[in-house]
């Protein structure tokens, strides 16, 4: 038996027609990076321990898995992949929950993510998304946390999934008690459209109903079971009634688990939300259908090799701190580019959160580099800001997940890994800034001054040559004198 020690749940801040949808600069990869970051941080400051194993229920390939470790700043991870279906999620969860936990060996992570964007080539991008976008990351470790107390289930026979669910539930739940929470995390639908609890658990019709899930995954999504477990962990009171989790995996298996809490479980959710939900219009949704993935820069071009070379700085804010002058050099170099010394450099990482915006602009249509034409068409104008990190260095970021006109100097930001721009068949990723709505801006703005301007009077040494004497006129050709007028000493 193994316990769910911590979980993170990431929901994008954007909405389209009532569904949670990812921003145009997000995808499964960026959502997973975020979920994993939150998991690492939930262990507390300085406790970024790599998992002993990574189990992903996604379509990501080997390269993307390596990139995940890169983004988190972890060594290459022992990775097991499962197909991105409910069955895959069932298999991953079963393996993680039921495996014999050895304390101190490190956690097993289970991750899944789902986007809601129209798939390339869809006939109409403006069709509403079929499901919510989200990512979830679960960390199983030791035996203290949320554990699976009992489980039951079975194969779905010829009589269909409905009866199989009822049989499994009846075996598991003998008393006519309302489950504390039942999370509907399955693509299977009853013909009634709702869960017939009275038939399953012997509840009286019209009686109390268990709460509905926070997120619905009504197709064959791996997210349902994992999100259900995260929500159950989040909402389970210690010492309270056990919640139940149940799910139905594909057309083959029904599984029901009762959960119990044997210790604290931390659940992180995707950071501070904007003041009001950000809505995506039909037009920008439509524009997402065909990202110009094969675009080749007409201009300022960053070769892939240089992009990869600077990943530690671009993704993880790694730089060299100079012990001689105190300045940071990003990306790291062999020599401090401020003082030129090379003997006092220490590799370090800037904090992901806490930088303050020093200057802000909103790039309007037509003022964006061509690389950001797609971004402009899917999100409109965007904000770019220079942010200063507490140790001193500044970096320039696009500010994401926000109405750009609401970005002002003084705001505090955190960085998130996002898509930057498409190039030569792949997306280039890098950090963007998100405004920390939970932290008050530092309010540096000063009001305009009404003082009279003061032109500088003679603040320079008096001229050494009288006007008309030629000053530092050029000497005759071949002349011996070398005027000092433009010489540095």
């Amino acid at each position, binding site marked *: 038996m193994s316990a769910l020690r911590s979980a993170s749940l990431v929901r994008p801040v954007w909405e389209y027609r009532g569904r949670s949808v990812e921003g145009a600069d997000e995808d499964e990869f960026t959502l997973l990076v975020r979920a994993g970051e939150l998991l690492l941080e939930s262990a507390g400051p300085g406790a970024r321990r790599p998992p002993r194993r990574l189990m992903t229920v996604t379509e990501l390939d080997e390269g993307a898995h390596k990139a995940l470790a890169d983004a988190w700043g972890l060594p290459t991870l022992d990775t097991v992949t499962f197909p991105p279906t409910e069955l895959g999620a069932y298999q991953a969860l079963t393996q993680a929950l039921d495996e014999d936990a050895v304390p101190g060996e490190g956690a097993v992570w289970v991750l899944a993510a789902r986007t809601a964007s129209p798939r390339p080539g869809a006939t109409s991008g403006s069709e509403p998304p079929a499901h919510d976008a989200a990512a979830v990351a679960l960390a199983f470790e030791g035996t203290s946390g949320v554990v699976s107390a009992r489980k039951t289930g079975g194969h779905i026979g010829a009589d269909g999934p409905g009866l199989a669910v009822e049989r499994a539930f009846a075996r598991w739940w003998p008393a006519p008690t309302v489950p504390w929470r039942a999370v509907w995390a399955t693509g299977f639908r009853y013909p009634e459209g709702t869960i017939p609890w009275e038939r399953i658990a012997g509840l009286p019709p019209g009686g109390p109903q268990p709460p509905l899930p926070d997120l619905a995954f009504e197709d064959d999504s791996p997210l349902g079971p994992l999100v259900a477990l995260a929500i159950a962990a989040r909402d389970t009171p210690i010492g309270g009634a056990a919640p139940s989790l149940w799910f139905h995996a594909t057309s083959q298996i029904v599984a029901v688990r009762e959960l119990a809490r044997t210790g604290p479980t931390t659940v992180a959710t995707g950071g501070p939300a904007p003041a009001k939900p950000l809505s995506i219009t039909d037009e920008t949704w439509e524009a997402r259908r065909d990202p110009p993935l094969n675009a080749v820069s007409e201009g300022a071009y960053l070769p892939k090799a240089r992009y990869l070379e600077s990943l530690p700085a671009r993704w993880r804010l790694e730089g060299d701190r100079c012990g001689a002058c105190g300045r940071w050099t990003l990306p790291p170099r062999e020599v401090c580019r401020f003082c030129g010394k090379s003997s006092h450099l220490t590799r370090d990482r800037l904090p992901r959160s806490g930088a303050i915006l020093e200057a802000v*602009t909103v790039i309007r249509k037509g003022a964006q580099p061509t690389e950001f034409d797609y971004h402009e068409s899917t999100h409109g104008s965007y904000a770019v800001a220079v942010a200063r990190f507490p140790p001193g260095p500044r970096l320039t970021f696009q500010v994401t997940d926000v109405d750009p006109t609401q970005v002002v100097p003084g705001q505090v930001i955190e960085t998130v890994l996002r898509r930057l721009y498409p190039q030569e068949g792949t997306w280039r990723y890098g950090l963007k800034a998100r405004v920390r709505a939970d932290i008050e801006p530092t309010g540096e703005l000063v009001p305009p001054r009404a003082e009279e*301007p*003061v032109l500088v009077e*003679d603040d320079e040494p008096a*001229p050494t040559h009288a006007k008309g*004497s030629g000053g530092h006129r050029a000497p005759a050709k071949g002349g011996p004198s070398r005027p000092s007028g433009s010489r540095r000493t």
Partner: protein
Amino acid sequence: MVGAGHTRFGALSDGPKALLRSAVQAALGSVDKGLTAKQIDEGYLATLGFGGWQIGNAASLLAEEVGRPGMAVHHVENACASGGFALRQAVQAIRSGDVSVALVAGLEKMTDVSSSRRRYWLGVSGDTEWERLAGLTFPGVYALLASRHRVEYGTSPEALAAVAVKNHDNGALNPNAHLQKRLTMEACLASPRVADPLGLTDCCPVSDGAAAVLLASADIARRLTDTPVWVVGSGAGSDFLAVQDRESLTSLRATKVAAAEAFRHAPFTRAQLDLAEVHDCFTIAEIIALEDLGMITAGRGGSLALAGETTLHGRMPVNPSGGLKAKGHPLGATGVSQLYEIFQQLRDEAGERQVKGAERALAHNVGGSGATATVLLASL
């Protein structure tokens, strides 16, 4: 300076070679007592090669177009400060004694290319990896400086607009200017936003054009004209390519370094200047330039413009030509065009926009967002 030539700036039908030819021939023709092409020792061509029409070896065209095939030529490229650096190199070559007569020309042909290609070329001189690929082009970079200038000094959109209004007033008097129409403060404030807080009227236009200047050693200059204009100081500096790495977001170190060098042994002080041609690719750039050049206390550049001190008839006329803002900004041509203006002004040949009695002038040319800059001082 013994001669200077200038084409009209604007969206022109002429190609780059025709523009170059026109400017250098005009410069030759402007030498009071006559100068032939074969008397020129070396040529310096300032151009970014916008659009990619001729990036490599472009300077050889200078020899072709002036009619002096075989002469030594240099292509000088420091983005928008190419012209200033080309002039400085020519000045240094003459001071070294190796060159007696130098032709310096600046050229850019910007309106030939598609709008997406133009947006690329307008961005190549900033930091590619950390600035441009964060979504910035130059309006965005200068907008960041304007944003910070407002935070630190309260510089308002009205102060920015005052710079545009003043430079358009001057540009309206310059027959070579791209935008020869006046603007009102209201029109500026209501203009479409490009990169907040900068609107369309805060930005210089995209222009074609060329300018050329002939420089000669003192003894030869006196033989070529009775009214040479002397280059009496030259300075240049640089800074980090990306704005984020710089000491300040409201000041350009490259300008300060260049100004300090230029004034170090100059025969006059800042307060004795009669006019300045400064690099106003965006309105905020002129405000910052006047502060960095040491002509006004840091933070007061905006109020200087609002108070009308920098108009043609103000205490410190700035950009009598209309500046980059109204005259136009064909990148490589700009620094050379500034010296053309000073040549005209100090010789009392600037017509309607003449600054009365001008004897001492400054030219300030910036590359990109301040990675490079030059300051040249000239007097009668």
